[in-house]
């Protein structure tokens, strides 16, 4: 159909011009010279670089709730106490602490010479103001729930001593003090104003925050333990896509990445150091003991014996978990329950407990993989007919009295790192806000209260064993696995972290160094 071919010379020239223009544009796009991947800080500086997600809310040490936001503020602030990966307490802004004989008050002595990054000394008034802000009537700090029913008041005793008065004895109180949102802030700190003046008495000072992109820190020269901080700074880069985070780690733009099945599929783990970041969470299978079929303890037991726990460790957690035994005591917590029989999948026991009954129920969760693995395991066993209802996080944890995670007969819910008695207070105790099992047991509550009250190691060992055994017998919750976080780290980093980078560890960088660029 075309009339003219070959084209007249002029047209050919003009088309060639157009083509050349296109090629030139591409060449312009690609003209950047080869250069190494960007690295944080000035040349020669030792900067530890971490990839994070966008923090989920405004940055205020008193209210930050997600791990990225906690890291952002936690590098600048410091708690009174932190813990090693082995559960050993480390003095930070407090040098020593002790409970009164009746266990109703704890006295903390503050470190001499500790300074906020504005040069003012850290005093007992600051500690009192910080904890008053957390536990006050109008507090919106998520840490408040950790202290509710435990901490009554905080008072200064001179400039360097603080006394915490408790509602009831609580032997794990230093762990609460090391918890979330407990970085000490100046007494005149105005909640919500942190980003305008990022104050704290921690290892680093916040130098620059570009919303949605990156946050850079420099070493705090006035930090009490500055001699042990070898890094010149830390750089957090915000990635919005997990694939990009994995590529950035491979390209050497960041020094660590959390281990996940996706990461292991793309990154050669042998090229890096693997650090265990300690046990930090688990998913509990909550059975509503007031609703059929779980109002029958034999059904609950049958279910507990039906679960293939190692299968869940392998297929849900990618191997980064320990087999659980239905009580919420993380494996790196001391003391551990002793002599509670370890449940393993036992189909004979299941058949015996079901006694020919057919059990039908629905798994409700927002964690699709866990729901699917559990459903497949159970439906493969005679006597179970299980359906699955996967909701988005927003639907599953919806606000209101009819929220699925607190009302469906069987739910699978995530729980972050806590001390055991906090879990009991959160989801087993009578009237507990998140008692999805609707479980009550006066005897168990007495034992938990006694465990909290005693600081005697032998008694604590005995009590936690009894508590765990009772949980095992009653099965309001099946906890098939307890998960630990693992990270891959670039080999240019030397030194060992005393603990993973979380609030229990106080984001402790003592002794860590990197080769400067």
């Amino acid at each position, binding site marked *: 159909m075309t009339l003219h071919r070959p084209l007249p010379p002029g047209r050919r020239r003009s088309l060639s011009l157009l*083509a050349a223009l296109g090629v030139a544009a591409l060449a312009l796009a690609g003209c950047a010279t080869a250069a190494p991947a960007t690295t944080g800080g000035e040349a020669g500086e030792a900067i530890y670089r971490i990839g994070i997600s966008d923090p989920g*809310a405004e940055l205020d040490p008193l209210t930050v709730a997600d791990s990225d936001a906690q890291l952002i503020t936690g590098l600048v602030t410091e708690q009174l106490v932190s813990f090693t990966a082995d559960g050993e307490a480390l003095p930070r802004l407090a040098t020593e602490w002790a409970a009164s004989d009746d266990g109703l008050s704890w006295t903390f002595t503050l470190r001499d010479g500790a300074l906020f990054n504005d040069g003012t000394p850290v005093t007992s008034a600051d500690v009192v103001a910080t904890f008053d802000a957390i536990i006050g009537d109008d507090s919106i700090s998520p840490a408040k729930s950790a202290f509710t029913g435990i901490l009554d008041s905080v008072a200064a005793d001179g400039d360097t001593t603080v006394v915490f008065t408790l509602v009831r004895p609580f032997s794990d109180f230093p762990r609460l003090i090391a918890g979330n949102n407990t970085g000490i802030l100046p007494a005149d700190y105005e909640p919500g104003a942190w980003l305008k003046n990022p104050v704290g008495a921690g290892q680093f000072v916040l130098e620059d925050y570009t919303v949605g992109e990156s946050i850079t820190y420099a070493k705090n020269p006035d930090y009490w333990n500055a001699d042990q901080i070898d890094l010149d700074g830390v750089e957090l880069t915000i990635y919005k896509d997990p694939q990009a985070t994995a590529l950035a780690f491979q*390209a050497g733009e960041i020094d660590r990445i959390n281990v996940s099945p996706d990461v292991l599929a793309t990154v050669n783990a042998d090229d890096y150091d693997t650090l265990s970041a300690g046990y930090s969470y688990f998913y509990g299978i909550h059975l509503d003991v007031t609703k059929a079929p779980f109002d029958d303890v034999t059904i609950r037991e049958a279910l507990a014996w039906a679960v293939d726990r190692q299968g869940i460790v392998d297929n849900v957690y990618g191997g980064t978990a320990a087999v659980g035994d239905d009580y919420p005591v993380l494996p790196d917590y001391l003391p551990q329950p002793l002599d509670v029989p370890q449940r393993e999948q036992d189909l004979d026991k299941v058949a015996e407990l079901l006694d020919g009954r057919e059990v039908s129920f629905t798994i409700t969760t927002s964690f699709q993989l866990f729901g699917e693995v559990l459903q497949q395991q159970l439906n493969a066993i005679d006597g179970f007919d299980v359906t699955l209802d996967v909701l988005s996080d927003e639907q599953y*944890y919806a606000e209101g009295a009819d929220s699925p995670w607190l009302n469906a007969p069987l739910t699978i819910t995530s729980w972050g790192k806590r001390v055991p008695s906090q879990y009991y207070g959160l989801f087993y105790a009578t009237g507990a806000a998140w008692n999805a099992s609707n479980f009550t047991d006066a005897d168990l509550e007495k034992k938990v209260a006694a465990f909290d009250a005693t600081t005697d190691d032998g008694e604590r060992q005995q009590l936690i064993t009894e508590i765990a055994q009772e949980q095992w017998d009653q099965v309001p919750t099946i906890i098939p696995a307890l998960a630990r976080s693992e990270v891959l780290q670039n080999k240019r980093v030397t030194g060992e972290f005393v603990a993973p980078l979380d609030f229990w560890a106080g984001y402790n960088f003592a002794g860590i160094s990197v080769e400067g660029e």
Partner: protein
Amino acid sequence: MTVSLSSSDTASANARRGLAVLRSRHSQVPRLIGQRLLQVPIVLLVVSVLVFWLIKIVPGDPGRNALGQYATSEQVQAWNEAHGLTGPIIERYFSWLVGFVTGDWGTSLIYAAPVRDLVLGRLGNSLFLGAVAFVILVPVAFALGAIQARREGSRTDRALTIGLMSLASVPEFVVGVLLLIVFSLTLRWFPIQSSISLDGDPGEVLRALVLPAVTLALGYLSVLARMTRTGVLDTLDSQYYRTAVIKGLHGPRLLVGHVARNAVIPTVSLLGIYLGSLLGGSAIVETLFGYPGLGALLVTATVEKDIFLLESGVMVTGVISLLALLLTDIALLLIDPRVRFDEGE
């Protein structure tokens, strides 16, 4: 007589109609702008109501997002109250609307920063990225389309068709990841994270821009090249081209005046739509490359139910898209050869 009068009347009526048509074409541009000035606010108003209502009815709670699992319902409620998220939805909507119109766009719930600064700052970045992508896209697409038309049916034409169709069938996300693996991870030419600061080192800015801009451009390349090819072929088939050649025209006059201008008309409307999408920010590309544009910002705002950020961001992208459409329509009017011919006469 009657007939002849009638015929001369008809002739003058035709002449008048011809002039009227010309006048009406002349007046189309301002009239079009006038119409859009009325339509755009109505469209934006409807969109803003929809966004406000949808974000209200989908599950999730900004207070719970902010304070996390361990906050009590009372604390979540207090947080929402402090951030102006409680009370009747109509009241809140009008309060937002009045603020938006008067320049007070509120404070972002997640970034605790003024929404206006965030949105306009990110818009600038998106415009920059979109403009770079556009500058890459248009000449390359025109060149490829022209080459294909010139060699219609040849092996080059067929190879380019297959290549471009293959490219069109690969999602932006995959193209982006592949480019990252080749050019960032393996060759280390460009950074993985395309953070930019427009007042920073131009070399670094260019390095950060290349991969996202090329990914964006590649996404539109195939269709645009295809349309250019068709436009050129149609023109070469036309009577006026043949007449021009017979009249002895050649060289740039033939190509620019007769081929290029006519061939480009069908692609202009498409370009307008692309321009709107490119400038409004591409969420996928910005998210993958960590480019600080409006698209990525709006993804975060939606996930976190940051209503003020989302509303203002949607309004701004809406204005950009509608403006791009208006520009397209005006461009079509202006390059319409009939109008030019009338003017010339």
